[in-house]
């Protein structure tokens, strides 16, 4: 049974095929939306952004050479647009808001309630990680990206991806410990 791969669909999009564009949009819009929303934390901005990301795909499809997967390509475009939008919204102020909660050793009401449920507490604490750490966690665990693909999306060397992931995990364990959920690692 033949199946249309993302790459084949992009080739069809390059020839102006709207149905292929619809299929690609349907296939990737949710993950791109979630990725962008986790970065910009504003649903309206995230929705605007995914239309811009896919419009870039429509425009750039003839130049797509298949050096990376389509999802990696889309995530790289999405990240660039999200960070540009964040800069416009005074990124420093946003980071400060989230950074404050990271330094807070006291349990948030959510974590206190969820101590009994380790998975739920982890979800809350992943959201408290710095943007860089949260991003690498999402790209590896949720978007299933390899070291090379994360490097391509984030524009940092592969060695940095590995150490960033390590310190993201370490920070997450520290947050868990601070919340009274010592995991014995690192």
């Amino acid at each position, binding site marked *: 049974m033949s199946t249309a791969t993302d790459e084949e669909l992009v080739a069809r999009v390059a020839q102006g095929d709207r149905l292929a564009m619809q299929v690609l949009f349907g296939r990737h819009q949710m993950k791109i*939306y*979630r990725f962008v929303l986790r970065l910009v934390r504003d649903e309206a901005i995230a929705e605007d952004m995914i239309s811009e990301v896919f419009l870039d795909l429509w425009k750039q499809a003839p130049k797509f050479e298949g050096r990376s997967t389509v999802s990696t390509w889309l995530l790289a475009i999405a990240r660039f647009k999200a960070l540009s939008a964040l800069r416009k919204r005074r990124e420093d102020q946003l980071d400060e808001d989230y950074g404050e909660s990271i330094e807070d050793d006291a349990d948030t009401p959510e974590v206190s309630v969820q101590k009994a449920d380790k998975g739920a507490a982890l979800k809350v604490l992943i959201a408290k990680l710095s943007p860089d750490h949260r991003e690498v966690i999402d790209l590896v665990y949720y978007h299933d990206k390899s070291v090379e693909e994360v490097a391509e999306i984030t524009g940092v060397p592969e060695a940095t991806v590995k150490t960033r992931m390590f310190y993201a995990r370490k920070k997450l364990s520290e947050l868990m410990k601070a919340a009274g959920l010592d995991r*014995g690692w690192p």
Partner: protein
Amino acid sequence: MNTMIEAPMPNQEIEELLPWYSTGKLSPSQRARVEAALANDAHLRLSLALIEDDRAAAIAGNEDIGAPSTKAYDKLFAAIDAEGPRQAPLMARAKAGVVAMIADFLGSLSPRQLAYGAIAAAVVLMVQATALTGVLVGGGASSYSTASGPDEAGLPGNGTYLLVGFQPYITADAMTRFLETHSARIIDGPRAGGLFRIEIARNRMARSDADQIVASMRSKADVVRFVGVSP
């Protein structure tokens, strides 16, 4: 349990690879190294177990995020519509390349008048071939212009319509086959929840007939996760 691991970690390099071991994204040689280290290091095995917890939480955290509205879809295709149809760049390049090649070839062998005449004939042949190709392949972008065209999207219409949600793992080919089997075509979508509005008949069918088609579609549970009648 809860044994603290002293820093620096003895298997730091392997430790850094564990998340990708967990997701199956290592090369065979890296995977073999990690597995060899795991066999001899309880700390690494603890670390891997925690990674699985983290991974499950990251996935759950993302999946908690709801679907975007149809605003993004509408905006995207409005922008694409505003750009107008485009010619396939590959075809355009191929045509230009062949004409140039013919010109070069004839120009090198013949007097100028012969070269011009031959180019004109070649161009006529090329135009005919292009027209025939256009007919055979269905005219490119225009083949799908009805899928979300401004003339139909969002309008009740006079036909019989359903709302269909495809399984998330469905391929484009399987979707196309499903639509062809039921003589249906996509009119609009994806809407909120990933639903598509499809037309199953150009005229208004009796409700009992439409219900039969709905039942038939619902029996294809490997293809669709939702089918319902749409106004």
